[in-house]
C-alpha cells in the first residue's frame, strides 16, 4: 500500500511539473490579466481621469442611445454597459460602417470621452482571448485552464504534508525557498485556486465542450440562445426604417420590473421597425449572472418578453459563472479575489522559476533548460512590463490621435516583445534585474503623469497601488543584485581565512 502511494505521489509530482511547464507562461498571462480584471471598472476610471460626470444608469444609457442614434444608426447592435458605483462611463460596443468599435461614452453627453482607451477591457480580453483571433485565443485559454486544473489536482496529490506547508518557509535556501514559497502560495489559497480555475473553464463551455449542445440542438445555436435567455426577444431586421422610441421610459419600466438597477442594455437593429431593446438586471446585486431581463419593441416601447431566472441547472451555471467574474463582490470580497489571483499568479511564476532552480542545483543546465530559463525571464518580467507600458501609453499618447486605443495596446505588446528579446539575448543574471528594474521604474513614474487636480478615489488608490508595486519590484531587484554579489564576498572571506 505504501509503495503504491509513494509511486502515485511521484507520478503526480512529475505530471504537476510537466503540465505546469507546458502552459505555464500562458497561465501566467491569464492569471495576471485576470487578477487585474477584478478591478476592471476602476482601471477604466484610472485611465479616463477626465471623465468625472456622474449619471444614474437609465439616464446614462438614454444619453448614450441619443448619441449613437446620430452617430451609429446603421449598427446591427449597440451593446451597452451602464455605469454603477464603480464605473462612471457607459461602455459601448457597436458596429458602424462594417467596423466594430468599443468606446467609453460620457454618461451625461453620451459622446465618447476624450482619452480614447480600452481601459480595463484590455486586461479583461487578454485574460481569456490572449490577443489571438477568435476562436483560437479562447480555445488556448480553455486548454490552459484544463491543464491548470490538472496541475492543481496533481499538485495536491503530490503533497505529503499539505498542512505543514502552510507554515513552512525557509528563506535564502535556494531551491527549498522557492519550493516553500510556491507551496505556500498554492496551498494558502487553494480553495480559491480550484474555484477560479473550474469556474473559468466553464465560462467557455459552449466552445470547449459543445457536445451536449450539438446533441440537443444540432446546428441551431439560435434556439439554444433563445432558451437560455428567454427575456431576449430576437427578430430579424425588416429593412423598414423607424425611429427608436425614447429609451428612458423603457429603462425606468425595466428597473421597476426586473426589481433592481439595470446593468447591460442591448439595442438590436436600432433605427429599424423591428428594433429590440433588452435590459438586464445589474450583475452586482447577486452572485448569479443574468438574473433577469426584459425586452421592448424599439419602435413602440411595448414589452415583448420578460424573464426572471429560476431554472435550477441554468441558475447553477449562472452562479458558477458569476463566481468567476465576481461582479457580485462587495469591496472586501473584491480585494480577496485580487489577493487570491495575485497568489495564483505568483504560484505560477515561482513554479516556473523552480523548474530551473531545481535542475540547476542538481547539475549544469542542459541547453533546453538554459533556453527555458531565458524565456522565463522574458515572460515573467516582460508581461508585467507590457502591462505597465499600457498604462504609461495611456498617459503619454496625445489625446486626438486616431486609433489611440489600439496604439496603447500596440505599445503594450511591443514592449512585452522587446522584453522577451532582451531576456533571450542577455544572461539571466543581467536580464532579471534590468527588466524588473524597468517594471519598478515604470510603476513609480505612472502615478505622476496625470494633470494635477484631476481624478477621484479610484485614481488615488490606483496610484498608491502602482507605488506599492514599484517598491515590491525594486525590493526584488535589490535582492537579486545583492545575491549575485554575495558568493564573491564569501569566497573572498574564505580565501582570507
Amino acid at each position, binding site marked *: 500500500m505504501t509503495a503504491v502511494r*509513494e*509511486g*502515485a505521489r*511521484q*507520478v*503526480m509530482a*512529475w*505530471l504537476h511539473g510537466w503540465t505546469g511547464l507546458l502552459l505555464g507562461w500562458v497561465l501566467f498571462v491569464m492569471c495576471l490579466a485576470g487578477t487585474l480584471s477584478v478591478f476592471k471598472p476602476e482601471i477604466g476610471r484610472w485611465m479616463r481621469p477626465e471623465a468625472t460626470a456622474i449619471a444614474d444608469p437609465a439616464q446614462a444609457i438614454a444619453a448614450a442611445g441619443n448619441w449613437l442614434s446620430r452617430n451609429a444608426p446603421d449598427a446591427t447592435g449597440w451593446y451597452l454597459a451602464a455605469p454603477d458605483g464603480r464605473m462612471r462611463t457607459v461602455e459601448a460596443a457597436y458596429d458602424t460602417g462594417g467596423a466594430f468599435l468599443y468606446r467609453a461614452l460620457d454618461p451625461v453627453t453620451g459622446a465618447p470621452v476624450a482619452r480614447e482607451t480600452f481601459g480595463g477591457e484590455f486586461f479583461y480580453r487578454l485574460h481569456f482571448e490572449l490577443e489571438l483571433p477568435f476562436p483560437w485565443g479562447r480555445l488556448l485559454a480553455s486548454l490552459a485552464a*484544463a491543464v491548470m*486544473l*490538472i496541475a492543481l*489536482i*496533481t499538485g495536491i*496529490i503530490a503533497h505529503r504534508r499539505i498542512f505543514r506547508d502552510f507554515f513552512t518557509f525557509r528563506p535564502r535556501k535556494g531551491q527549498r525557498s522557492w519550493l516553500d514559497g510556491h507551496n505556500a502560495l498554492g496551498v494558502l489559497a487553494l480553495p480559491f485556486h480550484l474555484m477560479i480555475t*473550474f469556474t473559468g*473553464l*466553464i465560462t467557455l*463551455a*459552449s466552445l470547449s*465542450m459543445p*457536445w*451536449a*449542445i450539438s*446533441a*440537443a*440542438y*444540432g446546428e441551431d445555436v439560435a434556439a*439554444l440562445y433563445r*432558451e*437560455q435567455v428567454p427575456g431576449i426577444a430576437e427578430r430579424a431586421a425588416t429593412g423598414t426604417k423607424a425611429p427608436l422610441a425614447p429609451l428612458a421610459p423603457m429603462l425606468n419600466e425595466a428597473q421597476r420590473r426586473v426589481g433592481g438597477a439595470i446593468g447591460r442594455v442591448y439595442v438590436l437593429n436600432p433605427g429599424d421597425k423591428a428594433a429590440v431593446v433588452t435590459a438586464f438586471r445589474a450583475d452586482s446585486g447577486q452572485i448569479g449572472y443574468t438574473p433577469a431581463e426584459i425586452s421592448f419593441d424599439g419602435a413602440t416601447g411595448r414589452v415583448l418578453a420578460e424573464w426572471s431566472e429560476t*431554472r*435550477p*441547472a*441554468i441558475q*447553477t*451555471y449562472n452562479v*458558477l459563472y458569476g463566481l468567476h467574474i465576481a461582479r457580485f463582490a462587495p469591496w472586501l470580497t473584491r480585494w480577496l479575489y485580487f489577493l487570491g489571483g495575485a497568489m495564483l499568479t505568483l504560484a505560477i511564476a515561482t513554479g516556473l522559476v523552480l523548474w530551473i532552480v531545481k535542475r540547476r542545483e542538481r547539475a549544469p543546465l542542459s541547453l533546453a533548460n538554459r533556453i527555458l530559463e531565458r524565456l522565463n525571464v522574458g515572460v515573467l518580467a516582460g508581461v508585467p512590463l507590457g502591462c505597465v507600458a499600457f498604462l504609461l501609453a495611456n498617459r503619454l499618447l496625445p489625446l486626438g490621435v486616431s486609433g489611440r486605443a489600439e496604439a496603447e495596446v500596440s505599445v503594450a505588446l511591443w514592449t512585452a516583445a522587446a522584453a522577451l528579446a532582451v531576456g533571450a539575448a542577455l544572461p539571466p543574471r543581467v536580464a532579471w534585474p534590468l527588466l524588473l528594474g524597468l517594471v519598478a521604474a515604470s510603476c513609480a513614474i505612472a502615478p505622476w503623469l496625470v494633470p494635477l487636480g484631476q481624478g477621484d478615489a479610484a485614481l488615488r488608490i490606483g496610484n498608491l497601488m502602482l507605488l506599492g508595486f514599484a517598491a515590491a519590484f525594486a525590493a526584488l531587484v535589490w535582492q537579486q543584485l545583492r545575491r549575485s554579489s554575495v558568493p564573491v564576498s564569501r569566497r573572498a572571506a574564505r580565501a582570507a581565512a
Partner: protein
Amino acid sequence: MAGGARSGREGWRYRGNVAARAVIGTVGAYAVAALLATALARTLAMPRVEAVTVATLLGFVVAPAVTIWAFLARGPWRAAAGVLAVALPLAAIVWAAGSPA
C-alpha cells in the same frame, strides 16, 4: 511507472509508457467527457436547455478524473481498459438514444 522512472527515465519503454498515458489522459479524458455530455443531453428527462447545462457541467467534472486515472492506473493497458470500460457503455447509450426529434 514510478519503478520505470527509477530504472531509467531515458528508456524507450518508459517514454512509451508516458506517451500512452498522456494520450489516454487527454484524448481519452475528453472523449469520455464528450460522450457523457452527449449521452446525458439525450437522455435526461428535463427541458433540453436544462439537460444540456447539467450534461456540460458534468463533462467538466469527469474529464480531470479520467486524466488522473490515466496516470494512476497500474499500467497503460489498465489505464486504457478503464477508460474504455466507461466510454463504451456511454457510446452505446448515445447510439441507442439517437438524435432528438
